[in-house]
């Protein structure tokens, strides 16, 4: 059962590499995403037995992040089919306005599925070494995805992504070894199994443990996009195809976050919770402030969304660092952010396909030329800035409540100031995209032919995600609430 979760996308990936026909391959993508989602749902209903001495297991945190991964991937896979069909119809020869040839579709689909397999392995692994292998695997599987449009800028982004993330994750490997030394100092015959280490947390050497957490935080924090280690993130997110950006932001960053949470949980159990909490709060606040600075007057709407992801990763880290009810808020926010950001990136993809520019100055008036995408933008703006009635309001408010309950006045002030700055900054950039006056030529086309028809595949997936965030704001099912609570407890954030 657990094997299948990883095996289904992995085998489908191999098939995708081998299949010479486009349409069966696209069907395969959706089918395996659907199967993966079905398996995840089954796992949620009745958690399966652990495998490999408990190295692969599902606790509440794994289940939560698995559910996010599976849902977002399934929804975006429908978008991917339409996207690939449209890209496939392009002139295969490089021409004046399309000076590049896309990456082969087989490689793209295969890497997409490998990416899913690697992310699944990250969330289910309960062994530090195995988790490291999986996280590095996500980097390697997603690098070719960023380079789908083979133009120089995406190449530059791919190179930065590869080098910065690989180096970051190498530090996390050193962190793993430090963990092992902490265990050795306690004369425990331990492997790096998470459950074993947590059971004997009290006997671990505190100094090595703190050093290990620092390395893990820096290493996986690079991947998660915590400032100041975030430098790869805006480049990769802005140059990758929008569907890949949606997956990077909506799913991959969460996986790295989970890896950090495992470290935090170990420190809490070892009685060093204060150390990791302070670090998480610090990194969280710095990320929020840095993101706010770059969001204001941002001239590229995909970079805008990327910086917004950095801000939200900051909120996640901050919530866990504060603990208590904020830990619960952080878990809820992970769900909300994934859905909202994936939806926004897909809307950005529609906008980019129509306007052929990522410049916020030139892509204006989507509401008039692309009505549904315009609505998606405005709903996404409200959701991502944490306005009621969206779920993000609830989760950001819960984090704030945790801060106030804990009496962290200064942190609360910084948190609110950053949120306020982001709200103003994002509105100033996004509102013209929605309500502005389209450039003359687009206006003329719209005036004569009416608004462009938007294919169902390009608007239905983001609409589904947006509806999800809206519903989460109106009603939090008891089952989900329980899962979030248990997840927060499992990672030591409660």
């Amino acid at each position, binding site marked *: 059962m657990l094997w299948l979760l990883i095996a289904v996308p992995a085998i489908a990936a191999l098939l995708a590499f081998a299949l010479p026909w486009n349409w069966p391959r696209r069907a395969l993508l959706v089918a395996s995403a659907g199967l993966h989602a079905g398996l995840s749902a089954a796992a949620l209903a009745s958690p399966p037995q652990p495998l490999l001495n408990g190295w692969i297991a599902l606790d509440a945190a794994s289940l939560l992040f698995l559910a996010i991964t599976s849902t977002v991937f399934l929804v975006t896979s429908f978008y991917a089919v339409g996207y690939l069909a449209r890209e496939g119809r392009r002139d295969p020869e490089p021409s004046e306005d399309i000076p590049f040839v896309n990456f082969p579709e087989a490689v793209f689909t295969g890497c997409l599925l490998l990416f899913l397999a690697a992310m699944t392995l990250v969330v289910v692994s309960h*062994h530090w*070494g*195995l988790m*490291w*292998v999986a996280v*590095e*695997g996500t*980097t*390697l599987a997603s*690098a*070719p995805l960023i*380079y789908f449009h*083979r133009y*120089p*800028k995406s*190449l*530059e*982004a*791919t*190179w*930065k992504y*590869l*080098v910065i993330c*690989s*180096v970051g994750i*190498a530090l996390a*490997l*050193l962190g793993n*070894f430090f963990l*092992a*030394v902490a265990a*050795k*100092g306690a004369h425990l*015959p331990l*492997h*790096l199994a998470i459950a074993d280490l947590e059971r004997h947390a009290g006997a671990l*050497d505190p*100094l*090595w443990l703190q*050093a290990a957490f620092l390395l893990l935080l820096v290493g996986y924090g690079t991947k998660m996009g915590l400032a100041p280690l975030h430098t790869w993130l*805006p*480049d990769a997110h*802005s*140059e990758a195809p929008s569907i890949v950006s949606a997956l990077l932001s909506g799913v991959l960053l969460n996986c790295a976050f989970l890896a950090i949470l495992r470290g935090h949980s170990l420190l809490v159990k070892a009685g060093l919770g204060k150390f990791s909490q302070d670090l998480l709060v610090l990194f969280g606040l710095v990320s929020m402030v840095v993101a706010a600075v*770059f969001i204001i007057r*941002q001239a590229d709407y995909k*970079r805008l969304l990327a910086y917004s992801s950095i801000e939200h990763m900051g909120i996640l880290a901050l919530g866990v660092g504060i603990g208590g009810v904020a830990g619960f808020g952080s878990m809820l926010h992970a769900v909300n952010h994934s859905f909202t950001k994936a939806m926004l990136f897909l809307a950005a993809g529609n906008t980019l396909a129509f306007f052929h520019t990522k410049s916020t100055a030139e892509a204006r008036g989507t509401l008039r030329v692309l009505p549904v995408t315009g609505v998606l933008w405005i709903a996404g703006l409200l959701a991502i800035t944490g306005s009621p009635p969206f779920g993000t309001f609830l989760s950001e408010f819960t984090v704030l409540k945790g801060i106030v309950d804990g009496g962290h006045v200064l942190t609360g002030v910084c948190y609110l100031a950053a949120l306020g700055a982001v709200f103003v900054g994002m509105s100033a950039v996004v509102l013209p995209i929605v309500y502005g006056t389209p450039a003359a030529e687009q206006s003329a086309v719209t005036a004569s032919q009416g608004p462009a028809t938007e294919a169902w595949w390009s608007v239905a997936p983001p609409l589904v995600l947006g509806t999800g965030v809206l519903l989460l704001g109106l009603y939090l099912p008891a089952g989900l609430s329980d899962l979030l609570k248990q997840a927060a407890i499992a990672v030591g954030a409660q």
Partner: protein
Amino acid sequence: MSNWLDAVLVLLMLTSLWLLGSSRLQACIRAVALQGALLGLIPLLSKWPDISLRLGAVAVVSMVIKAVVLPALLRRAVREVNVRNEVEPLVGFTTSLLLGIALWGIATHIAGRLPVDVPGLSPLLVPVAIFTVLCGFLLIVSRNTAVMQVIGYLGLENGIYVFGWAFAIEEPLLVEMGVLLDVFVAVFVMGITIHHLSREFDSIETDELASLKD
């Protein structure tokens, strides 16, 4: 065997300095291959003579990958692209060497502060591991060509491995193989990217990669 182990560690340290001071790509690839070979000797020497089959196998596989396969991949990347030696690094070679000596000071300082409670462990091990990691870092941030950055990444990875071997961390075989596979694929993917870089930009100097910024 501790004398031999110390000799290997000193050699490792020297190869790191060699990497810092050399401008020739071929020489650097040779240095990093030598590092990979020395790395494979560490577990064998520190456990000698009771070497389990598993330990021997991991040591041999790691030696083959780090000393033969990865350098071969790098050489191929260098051959295929219009490659130049590192002419104008951000930090000059003499300065790099001086910085290297400073890094050695930092490494011994850090190692001195971390308590090591393992009998029979060479006192050189932890400082050499940290030093190798720091040198890898310095190479990545101070060199302009993509190939040198990959060499720096390998140096960093080697330093981490010294650490892992030092404590003979009993990672399961599966994980060790996974780590090696990841490193292999990473260098492979980086090699392909270098190939594309050279075609797009007509050079592999990463300071030309500066169009994405805020």
